[in-house]
């Protein structure tokens, strides 16, 4: 479990992170979304004990990052957004070095390394030089490296950035496996849909502030005060337009004549939406279908980050 309380990082008068409060339950996957420079990497660097916060505190499995950073390091597997590899070191030796760095003895390393290479689909590359691997392979190797000491918590900063679609899918598969293994995973991305399907909870950060936190659905609901409703009808729209205009929760009614659809923005709750439909049916409007339009997560993300900018 990860607990973050009032975490703040200031550079002069600039807030890279402002009063972040967050709790991430054990065994869940938390997605951190935000534009570049929003404060995701700052948060992760603080949690990885690489950066000292200006104020605030965080606990990883109950261990304070400021009081016992050395103990925290044993609990976490950290993968930075940008990282390099050593030249002239083979894949197996690369993992061996980090295994030794976590105090694993030679026997333990010899057992673990083939398993990890298999997990990240690099078994056939075990004798290849690390610096000659492709970007996607390096990312996967770095993930294997972060797993070598069997950490309970994984902090992955943009693990899919710069990868081609195929490598992204592979990375997602591995993360799914890790989730099944019961790891608590913190993962960041500047692309919301990339995270939405694999995360239990999401946090949206903008200009150093957490502007939304919760399940994907709740975030969508919270951030989107208005939803788009489509009503498919037969016959004339005139009567229906008058009917919907009388509802104070409806706005911006538009007709899509060729498809026989009437579309409007609705800001009521689900119960109110149900009541509206019942009333419409009772008043005898020729309604064929009444549905909520699927909104693009990307649009939501763009909308909310734009909103926060304007504040």
């Amino acid at each position, binding site marked *: 479990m990860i607990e973050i309380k009032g975490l703040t990082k200031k550079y002069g008068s600039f807030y890279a992170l402002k009063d972040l409060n967050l709790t991430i339950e054990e065994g869940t996957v938390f997605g951190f979304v935000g534009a570049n420079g929003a404060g995701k990497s700052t948060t992760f660097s603080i949690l990885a*004990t690489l950066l000292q916060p200006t104020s605030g505190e965080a606990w990883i499995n109950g261990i304070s990052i400021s009081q016992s950073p050395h103990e925290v390091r044993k609990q*976490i597997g950290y993968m930075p957004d*940008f*990282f*390099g590899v050593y030249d*002239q*070191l083979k894949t197996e030796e690369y993992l061996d*070095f980090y295994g030794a*760095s976590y105090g694993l003895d030679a026997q333990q390393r010899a057992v673990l390394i083939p398993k990890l290479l298999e997990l990240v689909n690099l078994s056939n590359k075990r004798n290849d030089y690390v610096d000659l691997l492709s970007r996607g392979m390096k990312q996967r190797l770095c993930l294997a490296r972060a797993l070598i000491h069997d950490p309970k918590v994984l902090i992955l900063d943009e693990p899919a950035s710069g990868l081609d679609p195929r490598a992204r899918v592979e990375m997602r598969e591995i993360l799914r496996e890790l989730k099944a293994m019961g790891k608590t995973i913190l993962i960041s991305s500047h692309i919301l849909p990339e995270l939405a399907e694999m995360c239990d909870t999401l946090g949206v950060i903008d200009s150093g502030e957490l502007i939304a936190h919760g399940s994907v659905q709740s975030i969508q609901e919270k951030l989107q005060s208005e939803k788009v409703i489509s009503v498919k009808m037969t016959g004339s729209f005139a009567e229906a337009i008058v009917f919907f205009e009388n509802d104070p929760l409806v706005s911006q009614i538009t007709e899509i004549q060729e498809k026989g659809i009437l579309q409007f923005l609705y800001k009521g709750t689900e119960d109110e939406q149900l009541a509206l439909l019942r009333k419409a049916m009772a008043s005898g409007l020729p309604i064929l279908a009444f549905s909520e339009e699927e909104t693009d997560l990307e649009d939501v993300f763009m909308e909310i980050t734009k909103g926060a900018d304007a504040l």
Partner: protein
Amino acid sequence: MKELLANPVMVKEIKLRFRNMKSFTGLFFYLLIMGIFVFGFINLTSSISGSGFFRPEESFLLFSMLSYIQLGLILFITPGLTAGTISSEREKQTLNILLTTAQSSFQIIFGKLLSSIAFLLLLLVSGLPIYSMVFLYGGVSPSQIAAIFLFYFLTLLVIGALGVLYSTLLRRTIVSMIATYSTMIFLTAVTGFFLILSVSLSAAAMGTGVAPLSYFWASINPAVVLLTLLEPGFSAEIAQLTGIPLPLWVSYTIFCTLIFAGSIWLSVSKLRVNMNKYR
């Protein structure tokens, strides 16, 4: 001790160093220079004297020159090996990952220093057979060689620790190299110049009393300290000149120990630059 020798950073660095042709070429040229010098000197002296002999005095001269050449090589090679240890990790973006492992700052710094020193020790040890050529002709005692080797070890430990310190403090390897070489030049050339200056000034003042400044410059200059090790008579001369009877090698050892300990302490505390409060 076992933990120190099983240092993962050191093991990895040594592995990488010897996977690299550069190290073998370096070793080859080091021995080549030493070899050419020894055989050239022996050939030249015996042919100039026309006797075909190589006298013990000449053997001692060869030993002295060889000792200075080796000191020069240590002074020039050590900064090159140590001044990029931490900054190159930073430049290659491997440092952050290393800092999140369970290794302490001390382990990382010490591993880096030990691996560089291990290579330098290999250079010294591999040069021993050439160095020992002088034994064939006499004039030099084994204890003198041992003392000089200890002196080399101390010197490379200090320059190495300074290189690691600069590499920790300065972000770029090239700047760290310049800083380390500058310090090395200060310790050899600049202190030498100050020594000559302070000696001539005190001579001009006809002073016969204590000259601590001259003693200080002499005691931190490796070339001068080496001279006192080669020629014990020179040690007495320095004592007479400065009025301080403490042998230079004692002060040099104290100076080196202080600089070494200070550099390591500072490197360890500054390695996690963004984590001032904790290690």
